[in-house]
């Protein structure tokens, strides 16, 4: 980058701190805006504006502001410094410019160009905003008629699905019909115990277990379950202290009697 490039950079407010600058000096948005406003006061075409006069006016303006001890945003000062530099170069006799280095005139015309461009964009913005705008000057239909979406069912079931459903269903059912698990008759322990509890106190002296079986569980295949459940129920009641059991020899008859109150028992004896 040449000197010029750096000079150009100075035209852009150094983006120092984010959000640092929206300080409007008397309502100006940045130094370029201020310059543009001053330029317009010259009442000549921006292309023919005197950059020297502009620099003078700008510097004078800044002095006035500072004279009032008003705080000035940094980039206004940066611009002031650059304009002072430009002014001095414009006033001094032109040195033989080096290759690639812009002359003072070139810098001046760049400033003019930037002012013109800003002015042009301002005018473009004004023209854009002045257009007939939707909802202000131009209106669309107030009651649009939206398109209704109608869902059309499209069945994807295939013949395969049909046959599969049928055969699976028939097989399941056929299977279900042929398998009939045989439930062995069982006297539930709860039932036996419930029945025995009703008998407690009326059993009396040693009664054989087989005689305590319910009538319907005392014969055939049912006897086995009746005997087992009643024995278990007796054991439970013995544990609870309600009955006593005894058996003289293995596989002999088991005898049961009420435990009851000791006195009652003695009396019974």
């Amino acid at each position, binding site marked *: 980058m040449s000197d010029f490039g750096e000079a150009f950079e100075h035209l852009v407010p150094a983006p120092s701190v984010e959000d640092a600058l929206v300080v409007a000096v008397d309502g100006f948005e940045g130094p370029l805006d201020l310059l543009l406003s001053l330029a317009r006061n010259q009442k000549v075409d921006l292309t023919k504006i005197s950059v020297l006069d502009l620099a003078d006016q700008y510097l004078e303006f800044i002095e006035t502001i500072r004279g009032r001890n008003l705080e000035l945003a940094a980039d206004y000062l940066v611009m002031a410094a650059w304009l002072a530099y430009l002014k001095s170069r414009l006033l001094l006799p032109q040195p033989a410019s080096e290759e690639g280095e812009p002359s003072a005139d070139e810098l001046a015309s760049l400033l003019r160009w930037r002012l013109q461009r800003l002015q042009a964009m301002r005018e473009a913005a004004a023209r854009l905003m002045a*257009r*007939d705008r939707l909802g202000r000057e131009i*209106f*669309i*239909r*107030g*009651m649009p*008629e*939206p*398109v*209704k*979406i*109608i*869902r*059309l*069912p*499209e*069945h*994807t*079931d*295939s*013949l395969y*699905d*049909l*046959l*599969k*459903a*049928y*055969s699976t*269903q*028939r*097989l399941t*059912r*056929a*299977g*279900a019909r*042929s398998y009939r698990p045989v439930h062995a008759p069982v006297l539930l322990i709860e039932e036996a115990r419930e029945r025995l509890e009703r008998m407690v106190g009326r059993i009396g002296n040693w009664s054989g277990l087989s005689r305590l079986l319910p009538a319907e569980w005392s014969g055939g295949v049912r006897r086995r379950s009746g005997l087992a459940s009643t024995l278990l129920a007796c054991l439970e009641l013995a544990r609870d202290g309600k009955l006593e059991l005894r058996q003289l020899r293995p596989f002999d008859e088991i005898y049961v009697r009420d435990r009851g109150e000791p006195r009652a028992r003695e009396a019974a004896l």
Partner: protein
Amino acid sequence: MNQVIRLSEIMAKADFEPESENASNCDAPPEPDTELLRMAEAILFAAAAPIDEKALSTSLPRGADVPALISELERIYAHRGVNLVKVAEKWQFRTAPDLAFLLRKEQPEQKRLSRAAMETLAIIAYHQPVTRAEIEDIRGVMLSKGTLDALMEVGWVKIRGRKRTPGRPVTYGTTEAFLVHFGLENVGHLPGVDELKAAGFFEASPLSGFDVPNPSDQLAPDEDPVDNEEVAPATGSPDPME
């Protein structure tokens, strides 16, 4: 932008309108002020709700003959894609009724029958004519209320007749649409038990005496046809026949 349009230049000719009317009279008939017509048109177009004539007249320049403007607009739009219509004493532009179809977009939606519905359909297909009780017996499960309705709504199942048994229960069968959808020439073309076995559907079956009926479109000997008037609610919810 404020284009000035000379009234004399712009005549509200009968646009989109029977030529006969026009051909006979190429000169413009006396018509309401074209500018007012444009205004009324724009107001009615942009309105967020239907407008009555009184409201329209307050929006228009003083002295506008609102009824004449409206009837002229109504006439202009009469045969167009959009009409000016009066609803509840208020005016609004609406899409022409015969073009309402343009405002509907049909979107295919892929659907599958539920397992229960598919099983029921299959049973109806193979066992037709079949009553609800028979379907339940074959499936071993009560039919939920919606299942047959759904099948009738899809259009694959219909009421065929009534069984000559006590209570005369309705019999179900499959429809033409069923055959078309499943690519069957007729219900007799449903694969029989041997074909199902061959195709591997009954592979796992060790059972004998297992049979698949030969379905038929024909009225069964113990079946009466259903009168057409009786059939009606192919789609309705509860079957009034039962």
